[in-house]
């Protein structure tokens, strides 16, 4: 698309925004030129941007709406380069008015100004009834029927969902398995943007939770927003005809557009199984290498993408663990599905060793990446216990089944039996139960280390660093058995 065409589209879209009749709730957050007589004054909005941003950047953005007390939604009217990406005219981005990590500034909210405001209109119209539904009816009914008596709900029961970040609720929803179409029914879905949470994170989190539930219930993964649902509150049945919008919620469609995923395109009232697959992959955080390996496992080994996503989001296997399994074992699909039959010992041996290595690598990453805030010289002030990660990353060498840990600063490898182990920024680790001569030769050449269970003897004449996992082989196997059982019954 040429710049002229793009600009014409932006102008047409903005014209639609200013010429349309919006509800008072939408008008309250909109910026518009003075002559249109609603919303906030656009000139003042632009001058606020000019005070905040360099001149060329400020002139490339047009304030569109208030997102929250610390950020604005702005339409891009001229191309903006943001390091590794270019924001094209027409995109709607979020501009934070206070200092934030540069990665969060100009996050894409939507792909078109008119679509953005129209989605706000639909979202705000449904917000009141939706909130009343979850907070005053579904939540209370669930508490009376299941939380207070300590009863476990069946899958067809309407179950409320609440997602909060630092004591601020960012998403509310309600879900129930519906056997009439063998999928998930969603009578409530409300999200919002707040200053301290990344853009669309509430949508991503609620979508992830909803998709995980759809997977765990074992249906077709179809998610419908137009199916009746009911709850019993104070012996009174309350019936809903579906979600307040009776279609895929506007905020979720907006999230889909921002991520380039079609949501509600095949059927406006549903996320179809195919759309659910794409959405599941989009909402599941995966490092680039892991995503590529998961794709290979899907196309070559018959791994269901939904299972890979569920495995990660439920933390059945963590990202480095899954990465190592997919990179080093042809049996990864079998492991993720619960493992081979115990009578096939050869298969189980191979699976066990791969799983033990994955588990040890995961434990070692957490040890490397965790900062002990009680120890790190902090003796006064508030002790922050959230996000104490150091930012350790990893790469896996498929040919040698080793993990390279990339440390932000030189560090002596923990769990080492060598007191004088040299500090390093890249640490090559071979998580093993059986150490071969080939492993030792490789580790010698790379100055790497072998990571062994606590009770497994190192080979004699060992001349490479040995890292000792605190868990014994039996402990690892017990943890693996629990993971395999969870995998076998996860879609019950």
């Amino acid at each position, binding site marked *: 698309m040429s710049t002229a065409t793009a600009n014409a589209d932006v102008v047409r879209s903005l014209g639609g925004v200013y010429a349309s009749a919006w509800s008072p709730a939408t008008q309250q957050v909109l910026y518009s030129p003075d002559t249109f007589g609603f919303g906030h004054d656009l000139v003042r909005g632009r001058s606020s941007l000019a005070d905040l941003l360099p001149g060329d950047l400020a002139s490339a953005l047009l304030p569109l709406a208030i997102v929250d007390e610390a950020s604005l939604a702005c339409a891009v009217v001229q191309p903006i380069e943001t390091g590794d990406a270019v924001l094209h005219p027409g995109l709607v981005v979020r501009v934070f008015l206070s200092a934030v990590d540069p990665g969060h500034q100009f996050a894409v909210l939507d792909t078109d100004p008119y679509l953005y405001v129209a989605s706000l209109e639909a979202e705000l119209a449904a917000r009141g009834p939706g909130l009343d539904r979850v907070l005053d009816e579904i939540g209370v009914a669930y508490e009376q029927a299941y939380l207070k008596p300590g009863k476990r709900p069946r899958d067809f029961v309407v179950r409320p969902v609440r997602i909060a970040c630092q004591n601020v609720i960012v998403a509310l929803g309600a879900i129930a398995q519906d056997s*009439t179409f063998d999928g998930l029914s969603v009578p409530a879905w409300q999200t919002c943007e707040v200053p301290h949470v990344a853009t669309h994170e509430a949508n991503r989190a609620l979508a992830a939770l909803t998709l995980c539930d759809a997977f765990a219930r074992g249906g077709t993964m179809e998610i419908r927003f137009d199916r009746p649902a009911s709850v019993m509150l104070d012996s009174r049945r309350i019936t809903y005809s579906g979600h307040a919008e009776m279609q895929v919620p506007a905020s979720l469609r907006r999230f889909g557009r921002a991520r380039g995923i079609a949501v509600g395109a095949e059927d406006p009232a549903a996320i179809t199984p195919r759309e659910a697959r794409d959405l599941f992959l989009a909402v599941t955080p995966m490092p680039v290498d892991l995503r590529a390996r998961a794709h290979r496992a899907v196309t070559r080994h018959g791994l269901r993408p939904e299972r890979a996503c569920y495995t990660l989001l439920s933390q059945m296997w963590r990202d480095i663990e899954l990465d190592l399994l997919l990179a080093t074992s042809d049996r990864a699909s079998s492991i993720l599905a619960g493992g081979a039959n115990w009578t096939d*010992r050869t298969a189980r041996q191979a699976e066990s*060793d791969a799983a033990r290595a994955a588990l040890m690598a995961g434990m070692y990453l957490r040890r490397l990446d965790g900062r002990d805030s009680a120890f790190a010289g902090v003796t006064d002030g508030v002790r922050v216990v959230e996000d104490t990660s150091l930012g350790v990353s990893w790469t896996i060498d498929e040919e040698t089944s080793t993990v390279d840990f990339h440390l932000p600063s030189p560090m002596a490898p923990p769990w080492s039996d060598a007191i004088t182990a040299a500090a390093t920024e890249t640490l090559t680790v071979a998580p093993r139960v059986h150490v071969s001569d080939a492993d030792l030769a490789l580790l010698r050449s790379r100055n790497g280390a072998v990571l062994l269970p606590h009770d497994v003897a190192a080979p004699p004449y060992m001349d490479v660093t040995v890292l000792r996992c605190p868990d014994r*082989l039996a402990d690892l196997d017990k943890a693996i058995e629990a993971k395999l059982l969870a995998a076998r019954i996860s879609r*019950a």
Partner: protein
Amino acid sequence: MPERSVLVALPYSSHVGMLADDIAVTAGRAAKSAAGDRTDVTRYESLCSQLEMLAWEAAVDGAPQLALPETPAGPALPVAVEHLVDPLGSGLLSRLPEPAAELARGWLADGHLVVNVTIPLQAGARRDDPPAGVAVDVAERWEAPNGEEGAQAVEARFRALLASAVDGGTGEPIRPSGVHNRVLAQVLREYVVGTPDTRVDVPVAYRDGSTATHPFPLRCLPLVDVVPDEPDILLHLALLSIRHTEMDTIVDGAWLRNAEVSRPRPAAQTDDLVYEKSLSELDTLTNSGRRSVLLHIYQTGLDTAVVGFYRAVTAHLLRHPGSLSVVPMFAVVGRPGSAQPTRFHPDSPWTTEGRT
């Protein structure tokens, strides 16, 4: 993603000999344990791990070993010992190529144990990467053809699955998960009606992805609506114990123990367990078809139990026509578990004429 399998000749000692014996005994117990019971399986795997570690340490110390061209697959112990019977199959040596088996027999004759160690994380025999194109497609959406809602829609969906499986001959499984137990029993009965000539065996799959070992025979029985007036044995039984205790005053007992059936395991294993147990019990109860038995089964809503039980009833009636009549009893007033007294109503019986 290399994977290597080696045979190791482990020098015999009383310790490794006892370990091998324990492995064989535990494998035998694990093979007999109830579906989903992992107690003996876990113990078996732990013992195997210990022996494999000893074998690997011996190999590193220079014990005789042989790299296998392929990883031996199939049920077997990972160890071969002179005079040790493998309870899982024909034994490790039978799965080896002849030259390797011959060498292993020599090691056994020399008083060694032969242990198979598979090492996935090092250079060795590499498996062929399968070609692309095996991606699992998404599930099909289903929509009620005549706009049915609620329970009617569930019934219509299950009926459509059965119709497609029986008439379409596609080999597609039926999926009973999430279907009400009354609908399951009633619709299955409709589709069981037929003659041995029209029989269609349909696989049964559950929403967790597991598939029952035994397919469901449909279109195979000339079911009738009349039950015997004076059966040799008449019993009123809850399908599952404990689930709805209000049934206790009207039943003579329970067909299945909830503690055995409701365990965390793949759904198909529960189906298999219920089917095999029920088939055996029905055979005992009818004295292999020589006694006439009438069962009133008060149903509860576990799909795997319902499908497994009625598959067993169907299989029994195929073997011993007329020896068994099962009358499903459904709650009609008050819901099980509610304060209202529950009343049960009989539904169409599962029975045939012509006791042999």
